[in-house]
C-alpha cells in the first residue's frame, strides 16, 4: 500500500512550535474538539499542505496544526474526520475583507 511507505513519526522543531501558538490565534484555520477527537491520524494523512501533525498511534495527544499560516482552507480534514471533531474557521481578514482591490492591479499607470 503506497500510503504506508513512510512511517517516521515527526514533530516540528521547538522554534516552529513557539511561533505556532501565536499564529494559531491569528489564522485559526481549524478548531479541533478535544472531546470528539479520537486521535486517529486521518487529518494528518489527508492534509495536502503537510500542516497537521499527529504522532501515529498516540491516543492521548491531539493533532497539532503545525503551520497555520499555510492553510488553504480546503476543509479536507473536516470532511474526512470520522467524528466531526474539526471545524474550519475563516479568519477576520477573509470573512470581512477591506482590501482595496485596486491595490492588487499594479503600480504601472496608463
Amino acid at each position, binding site marked *: 500500500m503506497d500510503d504506508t511507505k513512510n512511517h517516521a513519526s515527526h514533530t516540528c522543531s521547538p522554534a*516552529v512550535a513557539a511561533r505556532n501558538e501565536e499564529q494559531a490565534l491569528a489564522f485559526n484555520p481549524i478548531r479541533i474538539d478535544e472531546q470528539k477527537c479520537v486521535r486517529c491520524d486521518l487529518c494528518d494523512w*489527508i*492534509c495536502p499542505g503537510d500542516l497537521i501533525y499527529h504522532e501515529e498511534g498516540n491516543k492521548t495527544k491531539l493533532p497539532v496544526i503545525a503551520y497555520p499560516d499555510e492553510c488553504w482552507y480546503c*476543509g479536507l480534514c473536516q470532511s474526512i474526520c470520522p467524528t466531526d471533531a474539526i471545524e474550519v474557521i*475563516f479568519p477576520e481578514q477573509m470573512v470581512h*475583507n477591506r482590501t482595496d482591490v485596486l491595490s492588487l492591479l*499594479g503600480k504601472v499607470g496608463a
Partner: protein
Amino acid sequence: MTTQGWTNLETDLLVVGGGVAGTMAAIPALEAGLKVVICEKGKVLDHCGSIGCGVDHYLTVMDTGPEWDTPAFLIKHVPELTDHIVDMAVASRVIEQMPRIFRKIESFGVDFKDKQLGTYYRLRSFGLPGTYHINFDGTDFKKCLGERVRKGKATVLMRTMVVQLLVEDNRAYGAIAFNFRSGEWTVIRAKAVVLAAGDVNRISRNASGLAFDSWHFPYNTGDAQAMGYHAGAMLANMESVEATLTPKGFSAQGLNALVSLGAYFVNRHGERFMFRYDKKGENARRAVLADAGINEYLLGNGPVYLDCRHLSPEMLDRMAYTLQVDRYTLPAFYQQKGVNFREELVEISISELSIRRSGVYFRGSGLAVDANGETSVEALFAAGDCATVSGGIAGAAVLGHMAGEGVVQRVRGSSHALPEVDRRAVESIRARAARHMSHDATLPWRQFEDEVRDTVTDYVGVRRNDKGLRLALDTLQALARREPELKADDLHGLMRVHESCNVRMNAQMMAAASLVRKETRTGSSHCRVDHPQTDDASWRKFVLVERGERGPETTTLSVDQPLSAAFARAAVAA
C-alpha cells in the same frame, strides 16, 4: 540500496506529481508493463492536483452526432479561442483524443451522467462553441484514477518533493527527491520522466493578504517549470498570466459553475457589464471575464458583485451543490460571512495571479511539448497545467495519457544504457539543503516570497510596461543571489524553501517573456500599457524561454510552426 545517505531507485518511468495528468501518464505505461515510480508532495492520489478536491466539470468532445460535437469543429475554433497563440499540432491531437480518453475514464468507473436526468448534463461556458462541459458529481473522479494506478502496482513516494532532474547530453535519466517527513533522500534513475506538477501559485498578492489563500492549490509552485528550465527544457507562453473572479476575501474556485448555470456579474451601479466586453456576456472566456472585472475596478465602477437572485430554486440548488464539490468550504465561508448568495449580492474581487493557461483553453504557459508530450529535452515529458497545451481536468487527462504513450514509445525505442548517477550533483544539492537547515541561513522564506509577490503584483501583473518589467527583473535577479541564505526551520520548511525558489524562477521567466512581447494580447493576460494594441502583423509568435548563461534567454517563433520546430533533439520514432 543505501550509499552515502541516500536511497537509489531504478525504474522505467518517473512521474513527478500524482494529479490527473500524472496518474493518466502512469496508466498507459503500467498497461505496457513498464515500471513506474510516482513522487507526490501530498499523501493521497485521490484528489485533483489543481484544487485538491473533486471535479465538477469535464470538457470533452463526445462525437455523438452533431457537427459541433466533433473534434474537427472544436479544432477549427481553437485559433480564435487562444487569440491565435497556440501550438495547433499538439492542441489538435489533444482534441482528437478527447472522445477516446473520455470513454477510457468512464471504463474506470467514473459516472459522468447526471443522476436525475439519467444522461450527460452538458453546459456551455467560457466562450466555447458548443456545450462541451459535462456538469457532474465528480467527487470520486480522481479516486477512480488513483485506484487504477494502485492496481497497476506503481511505486508511490508520498510527501516527497523532487528537487532536481538528472540530465546528460540533453537527455533526462532521473531525478533527486527528498521526503519532508523522514528526511530520506532518494535518487531515482529512470528511462523517462513525466513532469506533471501543475501550475504556479503564490506568485502575487491577493485580497486577504494570506499567501496560501489562492484560487488554485498554493502547494503547486511551478516546480516542474523551474526544474525543466534548469535542465535546459524550453518554455513558452510564460508572459501570459491568469486571474479569476472570486468571492472577496476567499480565493475559491467555481467561476465555471456560476457562469454556466446562469449567474450574472454587476457593478456598483447595478449594471450587468459583461456584454460591454464580449457579445457572449457571462459566457465569454475566463480571460475576458477577469479582464472585464479588472477594468470595472480600474474605471471606478467597483465593487463588482455576483448576482444569482434571478435564478430558479432548482438552479440555485444545483449551483450550491456544484460549488461545494469544487470547494468544500465555500458554504461555510458564506455562512460565517453571513451572506446568502441566493438572495443577496456577493462582493467579488480579482484573485491573485497564477501562471497556467491565462484563462484560455488549449494555450498553456509552461514547458513546450510536441504531440507526444515530450519536451525539448529527450525522455523528459510534461503534461497538465505545467505544459504548453493545457485544458483543465480534461486537458490534463488527455495530454497526460498522450505523454504516457509517448513514454512507452521512447523507452521501447531506446537501447542505450542510462548514465551513472551524477554523484556531484547529488552531493551539491544535499550540501545546499544542509545549509538551508543550518544556522548560517538567516533569510525567512516567507519574507523572500513576499518580496517576489510584491514585485509581481506591482510590475509583472495585470498592467505592465518596459520600465516596470526591467525594475522587476533587477529585483528578481537580486533575490536569486540571496537564495543560498534561505532558512528552513525543519524538513517541512526545506520543502517550502525549494518552492520559494521555484516561484521566484517562474516570476523571472514571466517578467523576461513579458518584456519581449511588445503588444497587448488577451486583455489583462498580457497588458502592456506602453503597447496597448494587439499587433497581429508582428506578434502572431510564441515567446520562448530557455536557460542562458546569465539567466532566462528569450527567442520567438511564428505560430505557423509547432513549438517542437525549435527543439534541438529528434522526435521519437513512431
